[in-house]
């Protein structure tokens, strides 16, 4: 959907490209910490806000990139719907564009899918100032390459995200959180066993010997699952606060200055015997680690298990030279560089945000 702001953007992009300058599109800047480098003149994308289309019975919402995610979620909740990937909100003003650019997903990702799974369409402005629409508002669409999902998680390096269409899902009829006292290895073993069964588990979090398991779905299904899983039921308000704190990194685990690593691992990876506190989500697939451990050593261990590690928050001692994001294999980097060039031939957008080469 065109917006008067887009012509302003077009002029800025064309000027920057002509003069060899760079731009750094941003929303509320709540994720500025997550960057290999922040370069380019800040370009506030909040000039276009608001919902373009919301059709509850079609399960989609289209919004300008500058719209606040909190507003979108409130609108959806009014119709008993949600963004099922539970995007992390590291501040009150997180925008739709910033959310999609980062590609981050929260606790429910393990059951519902990641942010990119819910992206149905995007409108972007490329480095030549062209407004391009990819995907659409329907669930099934295989016309052309899936550029919408390529844009998700590209951290603003490919183009300016102008508007986004997201699939939405109904809110669960009921939710219940169980608490079990288990060590990490036992927790992982139980979670895998439950995961292989048709149980309505929508989120898991292990920290400090306590495993929280959230069940979502029909009340009858929750009752049956609760029996099988055991543990104690957690008070509704307390449970909501817990998942909110895990999602938005306001949990006490995330306090302090020690570097925060996000480690993603394949399902059968064992408990990592590394120095530092850890918080495990997604049945063990996502592990947060507070550790001063040597980055190369950590990536070596994680890589050997088939995973990857992001230096999510560097703390005081952060050394970006080691790479905030897991280094890419040369053949993947070669394709990525050519894609960057395809979208942004003059290298206008957020140079080096992900990798120095992009």
């Amino acid at each position: 959907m065109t917006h008067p702001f887009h012509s302003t953007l077009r002029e800025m992009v064309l000027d920057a490209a002509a003069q060899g300058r760079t731009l750094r599109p941003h929303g509320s800047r709540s994720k500025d910490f997550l960057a290999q480098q922040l370069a380019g003149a800040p370009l506030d994308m909040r000039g276009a806000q608001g919902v373009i289309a919301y059709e509850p019975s079609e399960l989609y919402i289209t919004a300008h990139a500058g719209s606040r995610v909190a507003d979108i979620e409130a609108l959806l909740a009014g119709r008993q719907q949600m963004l099922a990937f539970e995007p992390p909100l590291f501040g009150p003003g997180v925008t739709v564009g910033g959310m999609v650019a980062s590609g981050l997903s929260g606790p429910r990702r393990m059951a519902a899918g990641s942010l990119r799974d819910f992206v149905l369409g995007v409108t972007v402005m490329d480095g030549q100032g062209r407004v391009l629409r990819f995907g659409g508002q329907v669930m099934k669409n295989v016309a052309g390459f899936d550029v919408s999902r390529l844009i998700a998680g590209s951290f603003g390096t490919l183009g300016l995200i102008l508007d986004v269409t997201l699939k939405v899902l109904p809110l669960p009829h009921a939710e219940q959180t169980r608490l079990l006292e288990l060590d990490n290895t036992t927790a992982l073993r139980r979670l895998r066993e439950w995961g292989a069964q048709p149980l309505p588990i929508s989120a898991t979090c292990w920290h400090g010997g306590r495993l929280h398991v959230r069940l979502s779905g029909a009340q009858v299904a929750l009752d049956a699952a609760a029996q099988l899983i055991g543990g104690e039921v957690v008070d509704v308000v307390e449970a909501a606060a817990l998942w909110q704190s895990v999602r938005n990194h306001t949990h006490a685990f995330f306090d302090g200055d020690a570097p925060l690593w996000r480690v993603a691992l394949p399902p059968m990876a064992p408990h990592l015997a590394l120095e530092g506190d850890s918080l495990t989500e997604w049945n063990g697939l996502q592990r947060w680690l507070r550790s001063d451990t040597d980055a190369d050593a950590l990536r070596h261990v994680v890589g050997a298990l088939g995973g990857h590690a992001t230096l999510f928050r560097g703390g005081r001692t952060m050394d970006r030279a080691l790479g905030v994001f897991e280094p890419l294999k040369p053949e993947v980097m070669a394709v990525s560089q050519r894609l960057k060039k395809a979208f942004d031939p003059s290298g206008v957008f957020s140079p080096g945000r992900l990798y120095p080469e992009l």
Partner: protein
Amino acid sequence: MSALPQAHAETAHIHAAAATPAAISPAALIVELSRVLPADCLITDSGRLRAYECDGLMLMREMPLAVALPTTEAQVVAVLRTCHRLGVPVVPRGAGTGLSGGATPHKQGVVLSTARMNRIVSVDRLAQQAVVQPGVRNLAVSEAAAPHGLYYAPDPSSQIACSIGGNVAENSGGVHCLKYGLTVHNVLRVRMVSMAGDVMEVGSAAPDCPGYDLLAVTIGSEGLLGVVTEVTVKLVPRPRVARCVLAAFDDVRRAGQAVADIIAAGIIPAGLEMMDQATTVAVEAFVHAGYPLDAAAILLCESDGTAEEVEDEIARVRALLDAAGAIEIRVSDGEAERLRFWAGRKAAFPAAGRISPDYYCMDGTIPRRKLADMLEAMNAMSDKYGLRCLNVFHAGDGNLHPLILFDSNDADSLHRAEAFGVEILELSVALGGTITGEHGVGLEKINQMCVQFAPGELDMFHRVKAAFDPAGLMNPGKAVPTLHRCAEMGGMHVHHGELPHPDLPRF
């Protein structure tokens, strides 16, 4: 179904001539390929090449120079390096069941079939993942996972024959994708070889790789970016119970409204399908499912989960269907009856073949709320073109498969069928939808890409392809039209589909 008139096969030549001709003679190419492939992995005689002259889109036929049937990734690399060095186009092929001509050969090129790379590498119950080679059949993955109580969710109707490599190329869906997603939601990692012969892994068994999401671009890329050599898929626990509700409506608009009501009530059924009266009558004569023949439309709504969940959901669905004005509601009692409810829906394609010499299957997707409008428009088109049309829908996700009935021995009938199809696809775009929900663009819908996308967007698709395949030799001329072609297109739409496997269920 009768053979198609030869004159129409020429349209395939127009498409396939898009790439630069190879500078090497066919004989020299075969010598080069024999150096890197064992004799039994290379087909060069015209008799055996004939089996590869088309995929499921039988109108588009072309004889390739050779067919390579590698059994290892190293052989795939060697074939691609050889062709890359010689400037020879390569057309990747899975099981050849695709409906849009994505695997139609290039007349100056080599078909690279992954059919013989058909090993299930591993199935891990606790990891809920399987690693398979590209030639493994879709259903074989679920069969291998079944002893563990797991299955692979995407279930395209050709699942007994189609391969995972082809599913990756087409981003295949199926009846259950409203709830369980498409291939893109169920494939975690793809290992592939680029045209230049570089092996690359995109995605990972661990979630959310850093960097650009090359996996998402690869899935649904119609064999334009690379040849898949290994795939890691997600397996999901098999639901304990599945039950199906059959509802009959005396008005199509009410049936369409019932679909919207179910979704709006917060229910995501495992399957939600709709058939119009013409289809119901045609399939009933074929499978005797016991459908009410006086209904203007029939909805099939499936619930799965634990017994308690299913009972709960069925009760809510039933109430909504009642309120929406269903004239009859049946709930399957036992697996035999559930399968009988589905039997007719799954027999729609063969039933069409039974009552008409030819039929042409479309694949547009529209917003659900436009279903009734679309049906009414298609009824008007049916009158306008003087051709019958059976309407089957993946109603839950708005994906339409109208089956236009015609007779290819009657040139005028074929011409009208093509025009009918074009009008449906263009209306799908006009209603806010897309020309293809799950069958792909291939050669078949390449002209309609000019309707759905503006020149800048098509240019970007070409740029994305070039990022993976700078030489432009992998499956050239498919999926994305040249801007020149769009400018020239005018009224020259090419549309036709015919199934080479009439025995396969198609839905």
